[in-house]
């Protein structure tokens, strides 16, 4: 038929844009405005790499990208931690167990867990940024022997906005991982740190020649954290960030998530600082 020879694909592709309706198994409120949904991953299972995201759809309301915050070993359910900020995320947060949402994914690049083996690991998380890093932290803790020192640095707005607080306590209880938490402001009852998250970098020891840092949080925080880390001697190619732009298709067809020369849904969202450093300073990129 016709110019078939020119077309690069021979197998009829499926409609990747259609969500798979799945049942919400559990909905759990994490914070005042943040919920964790556990979704039945169905027969295909929740196979993903730490750092990847899914597109979640609420019937009639819309679809948004949400990073996967579950343990990669648990393939029976998709776990997503969502903050209610817009109409779609609010609708997702409002779903009850037993209801259905649409899922498609996983998409995007992942945290460099394998490349980082043999190195010290620094996880720098701001706010909800802990959610996309959680699968990486869980993986690192499970494969603890493959890494050097591990530190989890967490910044939050205030003590009540601290995500996964119980889990942070559990991690902190281990002797082989350092967990440091700071908040922007706190009352008297808070016995932890108050201050900007990158200050925590000074509190941990790591070998700058053998350190991988994985940073996730608001773009300003990631930019400054990455700069601090590089100033302290960590190689820019070993510092990884998870960036965010508008996303509609998540399969590199719609052009919305362009950042610098990349399409974030395909080339990101996790990218090395060495690749994005020059773009981070450009306004309105």
């Amino acid at each position, binding site marked *: 038929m016709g110019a078939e020879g020119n077309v690069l694909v021979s197998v009829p592709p499926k409609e990747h844009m259609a969500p798979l309706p799945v049942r919400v198994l559990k909905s759990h409120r994490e914070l005042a405005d943040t919920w964790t949904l556990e979704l039945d991953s169905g027969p295909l299972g929740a196979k993903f790499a730490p750092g990847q995201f899914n597109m979640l759809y609420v019937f009639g309301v819309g679809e948004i990208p949400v990073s996967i915050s579950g343990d990669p070993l648990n393939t029976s359910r998709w776990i997503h931690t969502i903050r209610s900020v817009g109409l779609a995320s609010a609708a997702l947060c409002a779903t009850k167990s037993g209801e259905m949402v649409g899922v498609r994914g996983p998409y995007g690049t992942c945290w460099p867990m394998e490349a980082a083996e043999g190195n010290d690991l620094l996880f720098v998380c701001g706010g909800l940024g802990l959610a996309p890093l959680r699968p990486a932290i869980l993986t690192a803790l499970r494969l603890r022997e493959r890494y050097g020192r591990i530190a989890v640095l967490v910044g939050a707005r205030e003590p009540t906005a601290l995500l996964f607080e119980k889990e942070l306590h559990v991690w902190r209880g281990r002797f082989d991982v350092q967990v440091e938490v700071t908040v922007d402001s706190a*009352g008297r009852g808070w016995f932890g*740190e*108050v201050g900007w998250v990158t200050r925590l970098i000074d509190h941990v020891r790591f070998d700058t020649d053998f350190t991988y840092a994985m940073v996730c949080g608001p773009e300003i925080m990631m930019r400054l954290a990455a700069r601090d880390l590089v100033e302290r001697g960590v190689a820019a190619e070993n510092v990884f960030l998870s960036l965010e732009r508008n996303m509609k298709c998540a399969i590199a067809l719609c052009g919305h998530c362009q950042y610098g020369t990349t399409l974030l849904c395909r080339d990101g969202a996790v990218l090395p600082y060495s690749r994005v450093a020059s773009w981070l300073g450009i306004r309105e990129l």
Partner: protein
Amino acid sequence: MKDLSEIIASHPFFSGLDSNYVDLITGCARNVKFSAGDVIAREGQPSTEFYVLRHGRVAVEINAPARAPLVLRTASEGEVVGWSWIFPPHRWQFDISAVTLVRALAFDGKCLRAKCDADPKLGYDMMRRFAQVAASQLQATRLQLLDLYGGRG
């Protein structure tokens, strides 16, 4: 037990300080200890000292009526608290309290000022160290004010 000047020389805040100056300022220093909850300084009180933290954490707080004191920042081992000793009117701008058991070096501001006045090179060195602390704290404060952690969905 370590000699006071050794402690000063090995503290990150004084790293690189000329050993003559270490000896010179040791005369203004003393070891102090606070228990968790102790008030180290009160807003408005004369600021006669500053603290170089050796262990534990202190909170810089502000008191507001009808609400619990707000912690503006914390400082831990390796950091320094207090720069009101440098500038008139030498009063604390905030409350300082110990969050944990705190061990620190307390420096007598008047004593150190006199030494700095006498030796402007020392004065310049001290001013630089405190200016850097002030600048980084100011920057961090600005970022905290941005209330950045919204919106990542």
